[in-house]
């Protein structure tokens, strides 16, 4: 894009009044949108079901961890959230049929979202509105809509590609993609989303395959089925990477590499990032490190809030999430990759 066009766009944006709905739906300041929204809009297509054909759960009911033990196997995947002292787990087996839970956790209205086709779980603040499933996909990824402005939000981008809030980003909150065994051990008092969702589904059947072991659509070598904007054969398409992005760029971390290294310092977009492996949840936590010296990994403990150390307390956390490789690179073709090998 030419500098004049950027300047023109900025002037127009500055002169335009903010949509009234921006007060309802918490927004982020500067989402990373690698291509103009129209590119995603033009590449979006119907996934089969129509709008709300995959119904979000808007009145979630929870059970205790001990009650959930009867339903969940230790290796079953869950999406966990911990906020203001409250821990909740959302079984993948339930979310695969609903994709979005509009919930209130720790006093905050949140939307916990999961896209089975890209293996991505993200949390968003939703203010007084709700998010729903639009029925459309881009890069195989769930496109959500908000019930206030009807803007369209691809989940991985977390930014609107159509509607009154086009170009704006949702405020993200951290959710964790892990196993029931790991989550229960870290958060013994967790509540668990029940199968009493208000809809009748066969929650014993994952229509896409299985994670224990990975099979069907989830198998590492299985091809994505919907067209994507960008491709890379650096990894098998369904390999799970950990990704994070700032307004300056996106970074993919090889999870095995991180587990081996335990902690990584990475410079990207003029910033230093500290990436910490969490062995208990088998995930990663990212911080803006600034010019501060990172702590010794052996001195870091892991609690409800994630990694704990006096040196980490002053660092700003950056949201990240696991994703299938094909989906990450489809959205972020210029993504840096940290795996100990050349780019």
């Amino acid at each position, binding site marked *: 894009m030419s500098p004049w066009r950027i300047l023109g766009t900025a002037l127009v944006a500055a002169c335009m009044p903010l949509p009234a709905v921006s007060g309802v739906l918490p927004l982020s300041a500067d989402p990373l949108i690698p291509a103009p929204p129209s590119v995603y809009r033009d590449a979006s297509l119907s996934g*089969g079901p*129509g709008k709300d*054909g*995959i119904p979000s759960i808007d009145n979630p009911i929870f059970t205790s961890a001990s009650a959930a033990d009867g339903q969940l196997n230790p290796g079953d995947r869950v999406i966990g959230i911990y906020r203001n002292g409250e821990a909740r787990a959302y079984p993948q087996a339930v979310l695969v049929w609903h994709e979005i839970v509009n919930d209130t956790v720790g006093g905050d209205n949140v939307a916990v979202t999961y896209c089975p086709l890209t293996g991505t779980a993200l949390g968003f603040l939703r203010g007084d509105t709700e998010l729903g499933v639009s029925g459309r996909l881009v890069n195989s990824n769930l496109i959500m809509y908000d019930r206030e402005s009807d803007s369209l939000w691809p989940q991985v981008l977390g930014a609107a590609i159509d509607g009154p809030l086009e170009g704006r980003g949702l405020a993200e909150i951290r959710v964790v993609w892990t196993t029931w065994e790991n989550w229960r051990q870290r958060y013994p008092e967790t509540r668990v989303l029940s199968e009493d969702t*208000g809809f*009748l589904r066969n929650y014993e059947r994952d*229509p896409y395959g299985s994670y224990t072991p990975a099979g069907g659509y989830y198998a590492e070598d299985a091809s994505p*089925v*919907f*067209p994507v904007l960008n491709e890379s054969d650096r990894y098998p398409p369904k390999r799970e990477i950990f990704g994070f992005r700032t307004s300056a760029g996106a970074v993919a971390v090889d999870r095995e590499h991180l587990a081996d290294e335990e902690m990584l310092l990475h410079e990207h977009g003029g910033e230093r990032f500290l990436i910490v492996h969490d062995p208990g949840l088998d995930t990663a936590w990212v911080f803006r490190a600034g010019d501060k010296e990172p702590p010794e990994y052996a001195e870091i403990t892991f609690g409800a809030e994630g990694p704990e150390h006096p040196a980490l307390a002053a660092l700003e956390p950056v949201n990240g999430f696991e994703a299938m490789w094909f989906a990450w690179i489809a959205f972020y073709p210029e993504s840096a990759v940290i795996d100990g090998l050349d780019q």
Partner: protein
Amino acid sequence: MALTSDALPRRMALLAGITYTCFYLFAIGDVDLVASSQWRAQLGQFDFGHLLRARSPFLFEAVALLQAGNVLMLVSPMNLLITAILAGLLGANVHGALALHQNAACRTGNGRVFGGALPALLAGSACCAPGIVLLLGIPGLAAFSGFFAYLIPLSATILGLNRWWQRRQGAPALIRFR
């Protein structure tokens, strides 16, 4: 044109209809074999709006869940209605095709008398297009999944037209009112 007894075509039509019903309900996920074995019945929302709420084109919400041992069934009146229409049309087509086939004088083209069977089978699989696409794993094919569901009305139309053509060729009525 009078035809010989159509007892066998009737039995075959019934068998085809029942088989197709099972296949269709399994294909759309309303009947399934599950790992847990239990007996239960669960009622869902039963208002009119929910009854007509589409999950995708020609696939509707269930109002009850029944489980008998390892067999689980989601009861959706609209899905059952669609299944009955398609299975009935398929049964009528099988009946007509076999009845015409039995009559040597009418053996004028098996391709046409059986013409309705293929789209009917397509209809059964169309409702689970995403599953078929995942199974086949053909990149790009899923881009057309939104169109797959429209094979259902297409199939019903072709089956209906084929049945009309069979009747014009002299196939007996499937249901007789005495």
